[in-house]
């Protein structure tokens, strides 16, 4: 009764400005994720770790055969792990808090930086331009098909893991 505040709380913005200006850089629930600096830095840090891992694997795996075996293996393994991670997170609950940090840091960052498409495309184009269309086709098609199978297997394992942890 007598405990009402005398003055109402000040409005967050002056009446002359519209209540929600999409160009305002203030982080609000509607701010796109890519405009939130901590999330961008999380992806950058994860991408640096993933790229370093990719470089170390390419240095450790000796070049065998007529195409880039290291990138081939990196891409297939990365597709499996990303499928597993994303499915596990998706079934764990909404994309927020710790789940969002794991998705962006490990998924978009580490695994996105670990695997690469430009190297696959350039290697395939180089093989094709050199006249080795057979090796180019095998490298390109085997990468894509095994990548899809690996991602599907990862998703299946992630779904089982999520069911088992309930």
């Amino acid at each position, binding site marked *: 009764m007598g405990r009402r505040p005398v003055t109402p709380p000040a409005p967050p913005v002056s009446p002359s400005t519209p209540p929600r200006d999409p160009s305002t850089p203030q982080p609000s629930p509607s701010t*796109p*994720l*890519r405009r939130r600096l901590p*999330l*961008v*830095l999380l*992806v*950058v*840090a*994860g*991408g*640096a*770790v*993933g*790229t*370093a891992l*990719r*470089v*170390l694997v*390419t*240095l450790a795996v000796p070049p065998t055969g007529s195409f880039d075996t290291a990138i081939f293996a990196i*891409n297939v393994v*990365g*597709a499996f*792990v*990303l*499928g597993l991670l*994303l499915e596990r997170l998706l079934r764990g609950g909404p994309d927020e808090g710790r789940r969002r940090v794991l998705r*962006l840091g490990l998924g*978009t*960052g580490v*695994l*996105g*930086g*670990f*695997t*690469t*498409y*430009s*190297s*696959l*495309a*350039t290697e*395939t*184009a*180089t093989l*094709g*331009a050199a006249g080795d269309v057979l090796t180019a086709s095998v490298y*390109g*098609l085997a*990468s*894509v*098909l095994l*990548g*899809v199978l*690996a*991602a*599907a297997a*990862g*998703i299946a394992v992630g779904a089982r893991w999520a069911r088992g942890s309930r």
Partner: protein
Amino acid sequence: MGAGLPVTPLLVAATALAGGVGAGARFWVDGAVGDALAARRSRRTGRRAGAGAAAGAPSPYPWGTAVINVSGSLLLGLVTALALGAVVSPTWRAVLGTGLLGGYTTFSTASVDTVRLLAAGRRGAGAASALGLLVAGVAAAGLGLWLGSLLAPA
């Protein structure tokens, strides 16, 4: 890393950092492409049937991944040809090619995108996201290699 280039810890660190920047750029471009398509869809459905018409619509085609991988493949073809023509040094080829463009483009997301489209019964979109993207990426890389060879004959 190119053959013959001495691999120092500093080079690995610079390449990794460039890969992080590439991943950040991918995060930004993917979100920007997704937002632009969502805005276009809502304008269309708004004209046709009012707000909320998009509810229950199938998940959008992953154009962000396609734009990223095709543009990154074009640029890596260009950097590779410029390195063959000795315009780009082996060090810069490693930092820009293996690092920046390797981190910018991604294979794992494209594979998971394809599985999700196929699981949703969208066979045509799934084939486009796997085989169509491969053809487009290789063509873009070939275009980059060709442009680079014009700029810097080996």
